[in-house]
């Protein structure tokens, strides 16, 4: 029962803040509501017994990506964008497309809802006794070691790319 109440609270915060993210005129307000959504999604992860992911969500998304967004918003001027038209001309088509998309997803979920029956006793009791971080760490460093290394290379490339894109040109280069 408590689980249900918590889920509905977090889900309501996430969805309402997400709607506010895409309809705010001021980008800084959007960023604040994005933070609320990310925290609520971290709470949803907690109700799914993914404690490690909830921590990673708060640290990486709120502490890293969102702060990066706010930094960039501070670097570029916000005032002019506030007085422009906020939505482009094709918003009716976009809304119709999104309505079709959610109808399709909903229909698929409705048709498949009987298949969401948990097969009995998949989980060995020894694994269940381990902590969540332990399980994720073991899987990450044994089975998924190669993807893990590739992900680190991707991050390195992204760092170099971001620095190259945003650095000031020196005299010699021009």
């Amino acid at each position, binding site marked *: 029962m408590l*689980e*249900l109440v918590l*889920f509905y609270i977090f*889900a309501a915060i*996430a*969805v309402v803040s*997400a*709607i506010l*993210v*895409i309809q705010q005129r001021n*980008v800084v307000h*959007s*960023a604040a509501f*994005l933070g609320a*959504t*990310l925290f609520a*999604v971290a709470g*949803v*992860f907690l*109700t*799914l017994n*993914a404690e*490690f*992911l909830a921590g*990673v*969500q708060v640290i*990486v*998304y709120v502490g890293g*990506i969102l702060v*990066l*967004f706010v930094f960039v918003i501070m670097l*570029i001027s916000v005032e*002019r*964008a506030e007085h422009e*038209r*906020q*939505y*482009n001309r*094709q918003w009716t088509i*976009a809304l119709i497309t*999104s309505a079709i*998309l959610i109808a399709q*997803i909903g229909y698929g*979920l409705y048709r498949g*809802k009987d298949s*969401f029956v*948990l097969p009995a006793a*998949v*989980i060995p009791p020894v694994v269940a006794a381990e902590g*969540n971080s332990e*399980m*994720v760490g073991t899987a*990450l460093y044994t089975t998924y070691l190669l993807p893990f290394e590739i*992900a680190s290379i*991707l*991050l390195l490339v*992204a760092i170099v790319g*971001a620095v190259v*894109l*945003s650095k000031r040109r020196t005299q010699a280069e021009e």
Partner: protein
Amino acid sequence: MVTTIHYLLLGAALFTIGIIGVLTRRNIMIILMSIELMMNAVNINLIAFSDHLQQVTGQVFAIFVIVVAAAEAAVGLGIVIAMFKNKETMNINEIDLMKW
């Protein structure tokens, strides 16, 4: 009792909100934030199935999605800054350097 369907519906709602943001807004910062919303929706789905099937694989993939989201945000915001230096705008309709 919270079932997997609840989480999938939440993920679908967040994903659709993100798509609406990407398709309708003209401010590039909000478009990037909408993409982050969509990645979060995918993460909810992955972790819901991880919990449903009692396997840790979904959580590992969610970590990879977060890594890709961080890389995408860094490069995307770098592009926004470089573009703002050239065109002084955040409006995607005015970004048409490659159009002739």
